[in-house]
């Protein structure tokens, strides 16, 4: 069964989630992956959206983090201050799922502005949303992002959400509870931080993708792990489930910008 790069990316992201985990979900690719996991190998996955819905079980993919289906299917709906203060901040959530407009070699995320001058940005992005605190507090963070020299930059123009800062010890010095971006899942493969340097290293690659292509679409001199693994292609079951999910979503897919900026923030 043939598949697209986006499908491979979403399936790989879904596989990263285990049953029974609690997952703070942003809209866009993260929501697709989390709902795919819930509809396949992780039926007990607890989905938490920043709109205050805890344990949402959407049958259809929501277009926004505040769709009615999330409230109607949730175990509990709490206020927005409560979801951030009582549920996210103390580090109760296993996984935070983020997108990014720019990601640097230390996993720092930019969803605010492109360009060096904040006052005169080349591109004005949506901004932070819930991402900074998700990146700080979740036990681990998974970033889902399409890979290119534009998105994978040596330095982020603006650090909206902290990854590993400038390297080892940075998160610890700030007293951040979570372990940070343990996995970056792209349309080419998977990067994970080097235990020693915290630099993102290519550890997994998709079938049919060459390391050269990945290097070409990375804005820094990408290191490749010794034991680079080729990740399994999506199964027919996974693809069927994913396509069924996408089909439930409003015409969003038809609109190009749908896959652009908003993934940048946590919704």
């Amino acid at each position, binding site marked *: 069964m043939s598949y697209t790069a986006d499908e491979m990316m979403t399936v790989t992201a879904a596989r990263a989630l285990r049953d029974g985990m609690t997952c703070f979900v942003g*809209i*866009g690719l993260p929501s697709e992956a989390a709902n795919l996991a819930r509809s396949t190998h992780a039926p007990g996955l607890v989905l938490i959206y920043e*709109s*205050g*819905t805890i344990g949402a079980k959407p049958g259809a993919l*929501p*277009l*926004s*983090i*505040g*769709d*009615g289906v*999330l*409230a*109607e299917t949730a175990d509990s*709906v709490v*206020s*927005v*201050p409560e979801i*951030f*203060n009582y549920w*996210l*901040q103390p580090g109760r959530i296993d996984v935070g799922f983020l997108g990014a407009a720019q990601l640097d070699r230390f996993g720092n995320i930019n969803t*605010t502005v492109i360009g060096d001058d*904040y006052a005169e*940005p080349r591109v*004005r992005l*949506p*901004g*932070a*949303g*819930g*991402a*900074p*605190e998700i990146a*700080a*507090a979740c036990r681990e963070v998974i970033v889902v992002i399409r890979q290119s020299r534009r998105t994978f930059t040596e330095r982020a123009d*603006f*650090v*909206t959400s*902290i990854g590993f*800062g400038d390297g080892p010890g940075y*998160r610890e010095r*700030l*007293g*951040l509870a979570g372990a940070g971006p343990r996995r970056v899942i792209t349309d080419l493969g998977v990067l994970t931080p080097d235990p020693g340097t915290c630099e993102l290293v290519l550890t997994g690659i998709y079938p049919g993708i060459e390391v050269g292509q990945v290097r070409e679409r990375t804005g820094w001199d990408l290191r490749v792990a010794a034991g680079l693994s080729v990740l399994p292609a999506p199964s027919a079951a996974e693809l069927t489930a994913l396509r069924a999910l996408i089909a439930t979503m*409003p*015409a*969003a897919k*038809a*609109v190009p*910008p*749908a896959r*652009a*900026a*908003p993934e*940048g*923030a*946590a*919704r």
Partner: protein
Amino acid sequence: MMAEILSLAEAIAAAVHDGDSVAMEGFTHLIPHAAGHEVIRQGRRDLTLIRMTPDIVYDQLIGAGCASKLVFSWAGNPGVGSLHRFRDAVERDWPVPLAIEEHSHAGMANRYVAGASGLPFAILRGYRGTSLPAHTAGVAEVTCPFTGEKLTAVAALRPDVAVIHAQRADRLGNVQFWGITGVQKECVLASARSVVTVEEIVGELDPRPGAVVLPSWAVSYVAHVPGGAHPSYALGYSARDNDFYLAWDAISRDRETFGAWLDEHVYTSAR
């Protein structure tokens, strides 16, 4: 002091004046679009607009030239893309320059909590390590007097006016809303004045699961505006008009198309 029940035009005229700071809240659900359109019709200028998630209604207010400043934490068309009127104002000062003050959601939510609590600031674990504090006023570091830990303080939000949409009010002006209730209670309690548009006004507010009730004496003005959240929704009354959110991308991309839409759908359609 009980809430006054007025028409939308009367309520907005009584509550919103040029130069005010105005917070319209509603987290995807219950967004007060009709009230926003009334502010545009009344030609308000120089407003400081406050909202965690400025989306279509703020794109319209900004494009119509009502705002000189935006305080926010996420500005986009959810699930669709950019806010073109917002970007045109920030990137090209059209129709007027727009100053911005941006925070994270957790920061904004806690700023409303501080305002609602009568405190000058709130503390949270946030912003640390990011570029936000360097560009944003109202963010500072505080030290725990017991553990010595460093935490982030954010300044309280105290808007002049809160504007929200709710499912129901009773004839005394008690307000009830349910579903995703967001930050609206904090927004109203943090503000000096408030306008609440409602789907219906009933004799008695029977209890509803998950409902927030704002007593009449904590609200300034209530206006009966069925469908006042469209294209957002009111759980139990309407569904989110996702097609409009998708269509807004094209309408708002171009200044002329936007102007035409405004003429047809806002200026000429008094409620």
